[in-house]
């Protein structure tokens, strides 16, 4: 059995042309990857906090339609929920916008503050025990190391000003910004109450006792408090935030059109390459038809070329994309991830793109009249 098929041999015969064609298809692949990267980057960033929940359920005021809305709930509701059978504890999280002034630069920018009882750890923020101890100290905050660089170079022990009040940076946590919030600081609820007016939490993290049925308790809370509160599992909350983000902001349409543009560009490029290959071998293809090869066999030759171009174009585009994602991630702090599922999706799209181009190019072969060879 030959190692290479007829289509592969024809395509690889002109190595330089093949390389250029693969690179051109890689451009289309990169466009699709980048558009998808931005789309998921925004979604992942907006829903990031749902993945940090260190509990079984999340409760919020029902008017808090998305996570960047700061509607708070009554503290007593958390205590009432804690009294329900099966509930182990309910941890409050306080949050709001804060003006951060970097004393070195004098620049003031908005940052999101989160506060909770230091030992409760309602969010998984990658903090160390030392950092937790720091959190208990007065006028001490932990800074999100993944915040955007607009806050300057923040170091442990540095003094920063939050709403005009001096704080010391006691250490770092990992949270990540989104498209609205550029960074975050975390402090104890004691520091929060002392320096701010509102003592109403924006959400409560519910931890259940062992062997409690999450769904049943969720339904119970909903039954009692549905006029005022909403309760979610972390996954439900993520889905709700995804749907809100896609619906409220036209990012789906914007980046979807971008991906479609990449797809169309890829089809055009691949079609041109295959069309040129067929044109350069018109008499040869017509000869194959004359001697008895079917259109289906010739289609297999064309599709073999299309798939080869798609694979080479994909891998070159994948490499370029990884570099672009690194740059975008570093510059914008958006979560740009090249996951296996997304990569396979783009690979499939690339193959479909090139196969479509091959099917269109095949019309030239079908129209060939082998009798014209004589």
């Amino acid at each position, binding site marked *: 059995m030959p190692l290479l098929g007829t289509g592969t*041999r024809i395509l690889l015969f002109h190595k330089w042309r093949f390389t250029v064609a693969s690179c051109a298809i890689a451009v289309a692949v990169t466009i699709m990857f980048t558009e998808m990267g931005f789309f998921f980057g925004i979604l992942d960033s907006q829903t990031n906090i749902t993945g940090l929940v260190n509990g079984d359920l999340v409760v919020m005021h029902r008017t808090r339609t998305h996570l960047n809305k700061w509607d708070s709930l009554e503290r007593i509701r958390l205590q009432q929920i804690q009294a329900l059978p099966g509930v182990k504890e309910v941890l409050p999280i306080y949050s709001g916008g804060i003006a951060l002034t970097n004393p070195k630069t004098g620049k003031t920018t908005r940052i999101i503050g989160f506060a909770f009882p230091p030992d409760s750890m309602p969010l998984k923020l990658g903090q160390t025990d030392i950092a937790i101890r720091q959190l208990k100290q007065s006028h001490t905050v932990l800074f999100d190391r993944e915040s955007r660089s607009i806050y300057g170079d923040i170091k442990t022990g540095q003094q920063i000003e939050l709403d005009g009040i001096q704080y010391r940076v006691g250490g770092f946590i990992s949270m990540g910004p989104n498209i609205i919030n550029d960074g975050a600081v975390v402090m104890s609820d004691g520091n929060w109450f002392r320096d701010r007016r509102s003592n109403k939490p924006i959400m409560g993290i519910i931890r259940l006792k062992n062997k409690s049925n999450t769904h049943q308790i969720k339904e119970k809370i909903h039954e009692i408090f549905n006029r005022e509160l909403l309760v979610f599992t972390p996954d439900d909350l993520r889905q709700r935030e995804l749907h809100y983000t896609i619906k409220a902001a036209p990012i789906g349409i914007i980046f979807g059109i971008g991906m479609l543009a990449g797809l169309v560009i890829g089809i055009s490029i691949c079609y041109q390459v295959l069309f040129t290959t067929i044109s350069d071998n018109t008499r040869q293809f017509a000869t*194959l038809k*004359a*001697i008895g090869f079917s259109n289906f066999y010739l289609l297999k030759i064309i599709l073999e070329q299309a798939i080869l171009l798609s694979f080479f174009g994909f891998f070159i585009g994948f490499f370029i994309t990884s570099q672009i994602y690194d740059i975008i991630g570093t510059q914008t702090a958006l979560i740009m991830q090249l996951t296996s599922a997304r990569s396979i999706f783009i690979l499939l799209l690339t193959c479909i793109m090139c196969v479509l181009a091959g099917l269109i190019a095949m019309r030239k072969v079908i129209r060939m009249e082998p009798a014209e060879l004589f």
Partner: protein
Amino acid sequence: MGATNIKQENFEAINKNASIAVEALDVDYTYGSGSAQRQVLTGNNFTLNASEIVVMTGPSGSGKTTLLTLIGALRAIQGGSIQVLGQSLSGLSSKQRQQLRKNIGFIFQDHNLFESMTARQTLALAMQLFRDRYTTDDKINRPLEMLETLGLGERIESQPGNLSTGQKQRVAIGRALINNPKLILADEPTAALDKGSGQKVMELLRLRAEKDQASILIVTHDQRILEFADRIIEMMDGRIINATC
């Protein structure tokens, strides 16, 4: 061979008892339609027997190539009937004609080889027409044997860019013969060849006709190859006007 003028109406008497590869009766063909219609073949009768080499000659536009393409099932029949290897071509679909053509060896004036394929790969590709017929050993050895027979034993892995015109045409002939067709149709097979190469090509075809009982129809203007013909058919204005043994 003695040259005897045979009238067209006596075709059926010739070699009546030999097996017949091609039988054409009252074949007409017209190009175009309406006012642009042009009749290129009129009432042609033709028979090609097993092991026979027939050369068809005539001026350009006489219809010989059109008749060749009809016999080769490359065009659908319009008027008359043609039987090829026992199969009537009347009413065949495009797909059925394509299937029939697998059993015919075609030799074109231009070799039409893929530049990217070696001589061996070209012949191996042609064998794909009858993939199920060949063992794995056949698929490896048969192209090599054919190329050796064609005097290309040292050019097996050469691509067309490294072959002379004569060598390329021999590869093309190998492609036509690799599946042992009982009918071979050739259009100006020696036009681009020098005397020596043309002679070799015709000797190969003669050998195939004698050894494998293949029937060979050659359309040509090349006077050099007439000596190889069992019969010479002359066409003019869409009709067979003369047949010479």
